[in-house]
């Protein structure tokens, strides 16, 4: 299953759902849940790496969104999804702070974590494009959280820079820098692994 892009009609209906919910029709909120729960769940899985936890956090994020719906500013957010992603991201960060992990929260957020290169493979042939996707998926898991999130939002879910900056609460220049660094890291992890045998980390 691959990501199916959204349409402008979805964005319009999102705003309509927000409006109807605020007017007292709580069932209108269900449209937002149905449309965005897959996006939120997948982003959370990439962040916390535990499907069951991601599912719980998805529920938590939508409940927070419902409670905070009055604070949703349509002028600030041109679409609803970056606002939902922001809420989900904050929930995931809270979870990671609380979770007793062998990797500390500071390490997860670190710009320079210890990374092991993936095993070398030639990725030039068509046959190995599938392997490239697999390796990209693995390499993403090794990226610092912010790089990973910026990359996923931009290239998997095709968020605009404006949407990413709203979702990640960063300015657009920072988002560009995060994406540039994410691509550099991925390039090193995936493509330069043949040369990286003698390198301890990146």
């Amino acid at each position: 299953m691959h990501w199916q892009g959204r349409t402008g009609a979805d964005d319009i209906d999102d705003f309509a759902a927000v409006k109807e919910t605020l007017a007292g029709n709580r069932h209108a909120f269900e449209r937002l849940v149905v449309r965005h729960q897959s996006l939120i769940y997948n982003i959370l899985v990439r962040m916390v790496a535990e499907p069951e936890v991601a599912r719980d956090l998805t529920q938590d994020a939508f409940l927070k969104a419902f409670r905070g719906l009055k604070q949703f500013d349509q002028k600030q957010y041109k679409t609803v999804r970056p606002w939902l992603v922001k809420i989900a991201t904050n929930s995931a960060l809270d979870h990671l702070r609380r979770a007793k992990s062998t990797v500390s929260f500071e390490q997860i957020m670190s710009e320079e974590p210890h990374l092991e290169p993936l095993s070398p493979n030639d990725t030039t042939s068509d046959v190995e494009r599938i392997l490239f996707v697999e390796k990209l998926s693995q390499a993403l898991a090794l990226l610092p959280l912010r790089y990973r999130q910026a990359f996923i939002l931009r290239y998997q879910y095709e968020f605009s820079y404006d949407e990413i900056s709203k979702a990640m609460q960063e300015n657009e220049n920072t988002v560009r820098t995060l994406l540039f660094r994410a691509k550099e890291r991925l390039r090193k992890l995936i493509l330069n692994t043949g040369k990286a045998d003698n390198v301890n980390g990146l």
Partner: protein
Amino acid sequence: MSMVCNKIKEDLDALFDQIVDTSLSGQDAANLSLPADCQAHLSHCQNCRDYHSTNLMFFEAASTLPVLEVPRSDALTNSIMQSIIAGESAPQAVAASAKTYGSEAKYDIWLLVGSFIAFGAMSAYGSSLDDSFCNITSWLISLLLLLALKPIIENADKEEVVSA
């Protein structure tokens, strides 16, 4: 890596962004093309060619990254909506209790004032003037102390109600 390569990579990144934005807006990315100077450079620079092809591979691969099915997605939707419906009565209950609490607080103040007047009247009637004055002063000090502490006590109570 030369200065020219750095400049070309910036251009390639800009083109890469255009490709993503074009895809985002549902247009055909095939209409986008590299500037002539970029193409000329790529024809003789292997390093920049690799950079460009990797960019494109990232784009293709990222857009085909597997999307996980939400486990029991219908159940999740129902669970979220049930929590929302169940949770709606809680804020209403909190608001109602806060309203009751506010009226009770006003009632308390009038009770205190009333009791003070009654106490003052009774003390003045049943004892000497000095004793009455001391009693009333003591009571007044206690009352002022209580009123000073009242906002703190009220806030603590309200926090308990909200967290409940």
